[in-house]
């Protein structure tokens, strides 16, 4: 099934199963590391999208969609929504839109943790990038699959 994307390589397929979670964890690392150090929502989103893309090439489109669980379009929608909402809390403390708001938490084991609206904005960007990249990739792959099938059948 869906053969033209499944490169018939046992090594790649086995590796993809291990690389997928690793790349996803790495993308979250990049996401959280952003703001003060290199990283952030955009680059993290690209890494996460490429992880799923790799899986798609190694296995097939349907499994890649199953791994993703959500429709790419929904990810974009939610990402945009989160991004816009992240600008709103500032208004309630009488500051202009998108002024960063920080919350300092004292956690028992981790020590001091600063959480703020920029992180929320980055999460939004992260989701939009994953959604947009995968929407394009998956649609192209599916269109390819369809024409291929058509030629085979006709």
């Amino acid at each position: 099934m869906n053969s033209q994307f499944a490169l018939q390589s046992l090594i790649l397929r086995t590796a993809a199963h291990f690389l997928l979670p690793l790349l996803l964890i790495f993308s979250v690392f990049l996401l959280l590391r952003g703001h003060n150090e290199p990283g952030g929502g955009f680059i993290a989103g690209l890494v996460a999208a490429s992880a799923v893309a790799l899986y798609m090439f190694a296995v097939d489109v349907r499994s890649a969609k199953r791994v993703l669980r959500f429709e790419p379009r929904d990810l974009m929608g939610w990402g945009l929504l989160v991004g816009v909402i992240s600008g709103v809390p500032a208004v309630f403390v009488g500051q202009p839109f998108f002024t960063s708001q920080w919350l300092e938490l004292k956690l028992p084991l981790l020590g001091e943790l600063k959480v703020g609206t920029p992180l929320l904005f980055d999460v939004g960007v992260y989701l939009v990038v994953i959604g947009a990249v995968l929407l394009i990739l998956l649609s192209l792959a599916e269109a390819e699959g369809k024409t291929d099938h058509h030629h085979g059948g006709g």
Partner: protein
Amino acid sequence: MRLEVALPVIIPLFFGALTLTLWRWRMAQRVATATGTGLMLLSALWLLAATWQDGILVMHMGDWQAPFGIVMVSDLLSAIMVVLAGISGFATAVYSLTSMSKRHEAFGYYPLLHLLLAGVNGAFLTGDIFNLYVWFEVMLVASFALLILGGERAQMEGAIKYVTLNLVSSAMLLSAIGLLYGLTGTLNMADIAEKLTYAEDPGIITVIAMLFLVSFGIKAGAFPFFFWLPASYHTPQVAVSALFAALLTKVGVYALFRVFTLIFTQDVAYTHGILLWVAGATMLTGVLGAAAQYEFRRILSFHIISQIGYMIMGLALFTPLALVGGVFYIMHHIIVKANLFLVSGLVYRLKGTYELKELGGMYRSHPMLALLFLVPALSLAGMPPLSGFFAKFILIRAGVEAEAWWIVGVALVVGLLTLYSMMKIWAEVFWKAQPEEHANRSAHGSAGSGVLYLTIGGMAALTVFIGLGAEPIYRMADAAAHQLLNPSLYIDAVLGERQ
């Protein structure tokens, strides 16, 4: 901190994202769109009231102070434009609830609509020239997608011209912004304006000004780069056409008004002299192009071009009265032009064609619609007491006072030809008997056209209101022109009072 300055942008962005998440639920998208555009209109009215009362409002996004951060600025011109965007956005949204087919809705019509409105409002409100470019792009990306929604051959053809020419214009805009940044070291429009008053080399400033003129001129559909407009505007769904006709070119006109009153006023005799020629040529070519057309929406598209000429004329004469006329003309035009497109859509719904030759007899069968067509059509041609009369009257009076006789002559002739064009539509669509062979064509019948009548009626009422209540509208345009002619008001509002 003024919340209302950012709301007209935040609201459509939010509802655009919301409708995207509601992709599978058509009904929910429709409800969200009606609510979203309604809220946007309300926020726009709030903004206008606040700007009218308190003068130019500024919001420093993210609390980064000007000139380093991005500012949103609302002077009266911006606020008026945002209100007009709100009105036409709300009207087309309501109109699309019945006119848009399920197929188009399923391909993301509503999210794109909100995104387009966010881009338009962003462009009206930003006080940062690079940010202006970004909003232009937001608007263009959404409009590309809206234009080809449905994917018919004619749409693709129009879209290719539209996309190519607009990309050229964007590239030019970007290089102009780059040059300006190299010259002044800032992107904040108020800061640029202030720095340019001390600039040493007026030659390069004029060059940059011309680059801006060409790039915004393309986007506004001004002579000689207007041909993308009649090639594309008659192809998409009629609600999309109406929204494009109302807003897209006017964003270009707004940008011209902004940069040629705030930034490039060093060599008015030269820059605005060229603008005047552009205005005259735009008026003439537009109206002559329309005379040769026999497709409802193509005629209207060509008339957009000739009307753009009037607005630029107001800017080019650069007297207080002329600017009042320009602002008044924009207000009148957006309402009237959107409405004419909406009327054409209803005619299409009833008769199944846009070709004037195949239409006819609508006056007998739908007298109400005929009346509702006459209001915006006569207003466009400048019949008293409708809105177009006052708009043209102010402009021509300004031309006479400035003793720019040839442009006055052109404006009068073009007004006459516009009347001819509108009467052509009237005679062909409403008055003459419908040709036998097309008599029984009906696309949808009149089912569900109540909402459409309501929107068209509402817009027509606004036209009458602008005409009969010209006094307060005039005063508002007058105040807006006053702000435009005193850039120091804008600069002080953005950068703070300085010694």
